[in-house]
């Protein structure tokens, strides 16, 4: 099993969610995040005082999948999240040792 984590532009979330659902993904975890990569922050000016806002709002999407599906899921996310501009985010895949469904206590792939 793998964990696919995507940090994306907040305004792409709806499309990413729809694309994942269309690809047969039945669950995900979405959380608000803030950070920066090459995009860096932006500046805001209040009463003439300039502020650099380093951490820009992002959305983190996490999906647990069977190992062989991970590559496809990552591709689906990239396709749906891409605008071609700096700040589009990143997707990464990490191995997961075990998953337990809390309601039933099932382990492994059955818990996905």
């Amino acid at each position, binding site marked *: 099993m793998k964990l696919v984590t995507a940090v994306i532009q*907040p*305004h792409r*979330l*709806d499309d990413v969610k729809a694309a994942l659902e269309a690809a047969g993904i039945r669950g995900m975890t979405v959380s*608000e995040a*803030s950070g920066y990569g090459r995009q860096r922050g932006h500046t*805001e*000016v*209040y*009463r*003439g*005082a*300039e*502020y*650099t*806002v380093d951490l820009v*709002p*992002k*959305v983190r999407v996490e999906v647990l999948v069977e190992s062989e599906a991970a590559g496809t899921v990552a591709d689906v996310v990239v396709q749906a999240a891409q605008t071609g501009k700096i700040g589009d985010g990143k997707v990464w895949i990490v191995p997961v040792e075990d998953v337990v469904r809390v309601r039933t206590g099932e382990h492994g792939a059955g818990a996905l």
Partner: protein
Amino acid sequence: MELDSGNAAWMLTSASLVLLMTPGLALFYGGMSRAKSVLNMMMMSFGAMGVIGVVYVLWGWSMSYGTQSVAGIFNNPFESFGLAGALLDGDGNYVLNGFNYPVAIDVAFQVTFAIITTALISGAIAERVKFSAWMIFAGIWVTLAYFPMAHMVWGGGLLSGSENSLAAAIFGTTDGAANVAPLDFAGGTVVHINAGVAGLVLALIIGKRKGFGKIPMRPHNLTLTMLGAGLLWFGWFGFNAGSAFAADGVAGLAWVNTTAATAAAILGWLVVEKIRDGHATSLGAASGIVAGLVAITPAAGALNPVGSIVLGVIAGVTCAFAVGLKYKLGFDDSLDVVGVHLVGGLVGTVLIGFLSTGGSVFFREDGSFGFGGLDQLWIQILIALAAVVFSGIVTAVIGFAIKATIGWRVPEDVESAGIDLAEHGESAYEGISAGRIATEVK
């Protein structure tokens, strides 16, 4: 004398309008503070309503207005302590003032001024002061700085146009009044210079917020600030048009001048921002509103409407630049009480000497355009300086006394975590990131 119910109705309305300005100010300031200290910021305004509403009834009115002036600086606080003898005459009838409405309504109108003036100061010392220290300061400051200023300027004291005033000593008198009287229609000196200087002095005594100039201290909710600015403008009609003390032409002129100057100040501030920073901001519009209102306050009855536009533009532009001074000079006047109220108050008070239609640099005494002399300008500069010096000294004494006794500041960890929770046991919002990221809800 017979009751003028028109005047009475308008003055009751005005008093109510001015009272609304303080909650408006709380919103204006609250939006500009950080999310973790918005409640404390607003409570400084509401706290001032509590303290001064009581103090004014007990000795505030008596110290401001009466017949037992002490050296033209303040009136005997015990002459009508608790308003005893001030409201009713010997026969149990309500005493009327010179505008034929009851003195009781005058008290109502004036208490609202004392409240808003004190509340204005709080913006200079936002997010770092113990609530108890602020409440004690409010009661002492209004007593030692505000009531005397009100007496000196409006109560027939040293800075008025009475026969015992400085103006009378300089320009001589005719029929018991100074030949050239200083003009402060609704409180350029008493309210704005007074509060602005107090803000500056306290910001210096209390010191900067932890991280000032290093970490971002952005306004957390500019929608509150804009709503507050709107309420201030609305309430200011009571402040300025009410200062005609009658439902008459002067009140109408003051209303028009107030709006003309304020509108012009918005434009002035936004043009500066657009050219200097690249954007016309909402905070700039809200700030321009207040800068214009402040500057027209002393002048609302003395200018014509076009003169008011000129004054408003100058105020908007000047204040837009003045708010940057604190970074250069290194004091943390958090919400720009100095840049807006002190500078705006000075601009308004001094520009009367150029723009008054009753004789000034640009208008003759008959109101026609032309050189009308420098006397008005000199006396305006004099009362402005007197207000700066008086407020500065009195505030410094009170500020240092509080610093040496109960102390001003909350502990550093409280300041970092947010003053709301420690001082008031509350927080304004659930979760600091709530609402930061918008996703479409389907």
